[in-house]
């Protein structure tokens, strides 16, 4: 049964399809917004399978094992995250899901990207990992505050203390409606919408992979299978972040039919993607490194703190 | 001298020890010469020793030498524990000073100065 969870639903296969579909939709929509026709929606899948068949070159300066393994670690931790996030109210490991665990698991893909880039021995990757780490530090502060304020808000309603448990957050949304319906949580939701693009590394926050400046940063030396896996990681992360947003702020709906629930869930994910990733990506240009950091530690963190204070005031 | 007079005089010891400790600490804070800092450490040590000995003082008490049979409720003697503590503390103080002085000698050889303001290769 665990193997089923891990490999099929909500594990690897589901994430694979959902993530690549989201990536395809995103690309198509950006293209349409820019008056281009754009690739077919299944293009990321074609790319993935094509890259699998290509030759993998390990540069001479690279540490071979880390270089090759890094992408797999990222994939494994993303799949693990998917198991802990309740998808349409269903989580594979109910009882161990915890928002701090997820917070940490979400950093591992970034760390794996950083390690892979560092192991490739390229100076562009060196700059790229430095920027990736700055991005990580930037969005981690608001994300932490958002999660803590949710923990307090749910804990208040569910009997006194605090909770870090995802199961309780789901139960709360089942009985009280989605968290976003609370006034105090609206700033947090907006902040979370800003966290998503930075976590994924899409414009205007794609400082780490800036193609025009540092040639894809950490991915500069990658080719073949590891590159395919990194691209897949990117797509799955997109799905997971939107799914996290959905289950944190918009959970609690139920039609009774599980398959339909999952479908609705996915549609909401697409909507979130459109709002927070596609629109932003289509209309903005890349920010500078220090601007990203400043933006997240002032504006986004400010929104999150506002939410935290409102929760403490009992709103 | 009566007991109460001696009792009053012991306050001099306490004032003296606090004074010594304060001077020592001030030296360590304000002086830039590391030799003076070592001297400050020594002064603090003496102040503390004086404090400990004074704590054990019992006006009119005898030396604490007796056998267990002689010990009756009326026996009046100076508290022996602080004296033992002082002895230990003196030894430790001597060791600290010796270690500090040997470091000062080596520092002087290597840096060519005793100014704490210039002995700062490790900073930031």
């Amino acid at each position, binding site marked *: 049964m665990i193997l089923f969870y891990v490999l099929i639903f909500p594990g690897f296969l589901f994430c694979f399809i959902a993530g690549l579909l989201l990536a395809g939709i995103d690309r198509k929509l950006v293209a349409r917004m820019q008056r281009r026709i754009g690739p077919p929606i299944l293009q990321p899948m074609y790319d993935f399978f094509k890259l699998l068949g290509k030759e993998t070159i390990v540069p001479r300066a690279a540490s071979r094992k880390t270089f090759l393994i890094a992408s797999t670690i990222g994939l494994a931790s993303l799949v693990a995250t998917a198991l802990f996030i309740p998808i349409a109210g269903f989580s594979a490991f109910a009882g161990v899901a915890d928002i701090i665990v997820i917070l940490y698991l979400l950093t591992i893909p970034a760390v794996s990207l950083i390690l892979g880039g560092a192991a490739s021995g390229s100076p562009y990757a060196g700059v790229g990992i430095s920027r990736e780490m700055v991005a990580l530090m930037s969005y981690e502060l608001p994300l932490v505050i958002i999660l803590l304020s949710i923990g307090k808000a749910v804990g208040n309603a569910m009997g006194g203390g605090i909770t870090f448990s995802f199961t309780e957050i789901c139960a709360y949304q089942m009985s009280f409606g989605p968290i976003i319906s609370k006034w105090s949580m609206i700033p947090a939701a907006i902040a979370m919408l800003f966290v998503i693009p930075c976590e994924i590394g899409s414009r205007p926050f794609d400082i780490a992979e800036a193609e025009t400046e540092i040639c894809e940063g950490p991915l500069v030396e990658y080719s073949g299978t590891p590159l395919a896996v990194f691209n897949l990681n990117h797509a799955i992360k997109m799905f997971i972040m939107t799914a996290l947003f959905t289950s944190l702020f918009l959970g609690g709906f139920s039609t009774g039919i599980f398959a339909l629930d999952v479908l609705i869930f996915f549609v909401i994910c697409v909507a979130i993607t459109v709002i927070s990733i596609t629109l932003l990506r289509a209309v903005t240009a890349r920010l500078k490194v220090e601007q990203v950091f400043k933006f997240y530690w002032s504006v986004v963190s400010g929104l999150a703190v506002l939410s935290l204070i409102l929760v403490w005031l009992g709103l | 001298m009566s007991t109460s007079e001696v009792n009053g005089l012991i306050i001099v010891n306490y004032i003296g020890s606090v004074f010594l400790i304060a001077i020592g600490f001030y030296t360590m804070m304000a002086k830039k010469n590391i030799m003076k800092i070592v001297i400050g450490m020594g002064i603090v040590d003496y102040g503390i020793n004086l404090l400990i000995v004074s704590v054990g003082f019992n006006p009119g008490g005898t030396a604490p030498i007796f*056998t267990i049979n002689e010990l009756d409720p009326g026996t009046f003697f100076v508290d022996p524990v602080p004296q033992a503590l002082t002895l230990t503390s003196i030894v430790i103080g001597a060791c600290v000073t010796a270690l500090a002085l*040997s470091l000062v*000698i*080596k520092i002087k050889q290597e840096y060519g100065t005793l100014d704490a303001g210039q002995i700062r290769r490790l900073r930031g």
Partner: protein
Amino acid sequence: MKKNINVRHIIVKDAADIFTPLSLVFGFYIILHGNLSPGGGFQGGVMIAASAVLIYLGYGFKTASSAINMEVIRKGEAIAAICYTCLALLGIFFGLNFCRNVFFNNGAIGDLLSSGTIAFMNYAVGFKVLTGVSFLILLMVSLLAPDSDSEHK
């Protein structure tokens, strides 16, 4: 200071000659009778170590370091410490606690071997202090010695 040491006045030299044996004898007396009269291992040990200073003051570093073998002193200190520990451990071998006073413990006042292991521990402490402090002094003097001796040659 430096000048006095190197010129080695006859007064300093003679005083050292006179006081070195005195301080040695008195130091040993204090160590040996530490369990009976005021004083003890530490005070006696320091007094004996003072004789090392006297030798240095009277005859300079070279004589002092040739008269006193540093390596032997260092090992002597370790042996003294080991003796102390072993004497303390005797308590455990006798089925009592660490540091327990186990034999010759008759408590006769004025008798040299009346206080059990305490006397022996006291001797060990005395030996440790006399070696330790002399070693310390000689070591610090040797840090200063090379330039002070070479100045007048």
